[in-house]
C-alpha cells in the first residue's frame, strides 16, 4: 500500500504488462510497444530520408509532389491515419494484414512526413559553400549529398529525430483503438477485468512510458556527445 493505493494488481500482472502472453502467445505490453516503436522508427527514418531528399530535389515534379504528400499527411490527425490504414489496407491488399502492421504502416507514414521536414531543414541548414566546394572538385550532386552534406546534416538532426521517436513511443498507445495489445491496451484490459484499481494501473503505465522516453532521450544526449566534432583547441 502506498498512500492508500494498492499496487498488488500491478505486481500480480507484471509479466502480462511487460510481455503480454509471450512466449505462449503473441508478444504484448511494453515489449510490443517497443517493437512497434522501433520498427516504425527504422521505417520512418528511411521514409523521412527519402521524402526529405525528394523535397530538396532539383527536379520540380519530385519536389512539389513530395511536398504535397508531406503537407497532406501533416494536416491529418494520427488517429485518422490509423483508421484510414485500418479500413483501407485490408481492402487494398485483400486482407492478411495484422493489426500490428496496420499500426506500423500508419505510424511510419505519419512520422516519415515529420522526419522529412527534419531532414529537409538539416540539409538546407548546411552552408551552401559545402555543396559548392564538393561539386567544384568534380563530385556529382548526388555524391556530394552522400559524402559531404548528409553526414553533417544527420549529426545535426539527432536531437530532432529523438524528439520524434519519443513522441512516436507515446503515439503507439493509439494502437489500442484497433485492438493491438500493446501497453495501453493491456492496461485497459486489466482494468476492465479487475475494475477496482484504475488509478494504480494508469499511474504504473505512465511511469513506464516516462522511463522509456527518458531513457531514449538520455541515449541521444550520449550519442550527440560521441558524434560531436572535435572543437577547436
Amino acid at each position, binding site marked *: 500500500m502506498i498512500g492508500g493505493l494498492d499496487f498488488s494488481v500491478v505486481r500480480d500482472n507484471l509479466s502480462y504488462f511487460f510481455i503480454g502472453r509471450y512466449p505462449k502467445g503473441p508478444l504484448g505490453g511494453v515489449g510490443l510497444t517497443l517493437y512497434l516503436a522501433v520498427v516504425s522508427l527504422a521505417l520512418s527514418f528511411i521514409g523521412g530520408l527519402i521524402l526529405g531528399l525528394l523535397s530538396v530535389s532539383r527536379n520540380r515534379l519530385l519536389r512539389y509532389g513530395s511536398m504535397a504528400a508531406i503537407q497532406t499527411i501533416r494536416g491529418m490527425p494520427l488517429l485518422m491515419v490509423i483508421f484510414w490504414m485500418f479500413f483501407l489496407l485490408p481492402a487494398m491488399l485483400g486482407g492478411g494484414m495484422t493489426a500490428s502492421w496496420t499500426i506500423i504502416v500508419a505510424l511510419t507514414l505519419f512520422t516519415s512526413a515529420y522526419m522529412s521536414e527534419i531532414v529537409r531543414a538539416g540539409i538546407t541548414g548546411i552552408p551552401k559553400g559545402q555543396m559548392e566546394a564538393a561539386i*567544384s572538385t568534380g563530385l556529382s550532386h548526388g555524391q556530394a549529398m552522400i559524402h559531404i552534406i548528409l553526414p553533417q546534416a544527420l549529426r545535426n538532426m539527432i536531437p530532432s529525430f529523438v524528439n520524434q521517436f519519443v513522441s512516436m513511443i507515446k503515439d503507439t498507445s493509439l494502437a489500442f483503438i484497433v485492438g493491438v495489445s500493446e501497453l495501453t491496451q493491456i492496461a485497459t484490459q486489466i482494468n476492465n477485468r479487475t475494475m477496482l484499481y484504475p488509478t494504480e494501473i494508469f499511474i504504473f503505465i505512465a511511469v513506464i512510458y516516462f522511463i522509456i522516453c527518458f531513457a531514449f532521450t538520455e541515449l541521444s544526449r550520449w550519442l550527440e556527445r560521441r558524434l560531436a566534432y*572535435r572543437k577547436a583547441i
Partner: protein
Amino acid sequence: MIRFEGVHKWFDKLHVLNNINLHVRSGEVVVVCGPSGSGKSTLIRTINDLEPINEGKLLVDGKDLSDKKTDINKMRAEIGFVFQQFNLYPHLTVLRNITLATMKIRNLSRKDAEEQAMTLLKRVGLPEKRDAYPSQLSGGQQQRVAIARGLAMKPKIMLFDEPTSALDPEMIGEVLQVMKDLALSGMTMIVVSHEMGFAREVSHRIIFMDFGTILEEAPPEEFFKNPQHDRAKQFLKQILSPMH
C-alpha cells in the same frame, strides 16, 4: 585555355556580367580586382559553372560550357577552386578532405590517394596536420589545406576567390607564398584579390572590373604606373593608401 566571348549574366534584373570578352592562356596568371559588387566572384564562378551564364560563349579547355554534351562534373574535376571561406569539410580530417575526390573520381586506392595527399601537404607546409579536423586549424592553415584539396585533382586551372580576405593579417603571407610557388610552377591561375604585392610579383595581367564590365586590362607594371580610367585610379589610390 579560358575564353569568354560576349558573356552576359543577370541576377533577376541585375546585370552582373556585361559583355565580357577575355582570353586566358595556358600558364598565365591573371589577377582580377575591382570594387565590391563589380562581379569579380561571379566572373570566376562562371568558369566552373557554379554560376551558369545567360548569354554569349564560354570555352574552357576547348569545351563549351553551355553545350549540353559537355560533362560539367568532368570539367570541374580539371579546375581547382579556392573559396574565401575555405569551405573545408568539417566532419572529415585534413587527409580525408584531400583524398575524398581523388578516391571517388580519380579512383585512386586509399594508399595512393594518401601518399599523394601527403606530398601536397608537405608542399603547403602542413604534413603534421594530416589527422587534424578543420576546426583545429588556423584560418591560414585551413586555406592552405583547401589549396592542397584543389591541387589533388591535378587540375589544369586554379581559381581563387579572395583567398586571403577572411584571414588575419599575420596569416596572409603563408597563403600567398603557396600561391606564388604555384604561379611559378606554371599553373594557369585566375585570382580575385586585392593583394597588389602578389599581383605585382607574379601576375602576368591585371583585370579591373567595374559594374560587370572589364574596364581595364594590362600587365601589372603598366596598370600600377599608368591606369587609364578614373575609376581604376580611384580604386588604386584607395587600395594602396597607407591608411587601408
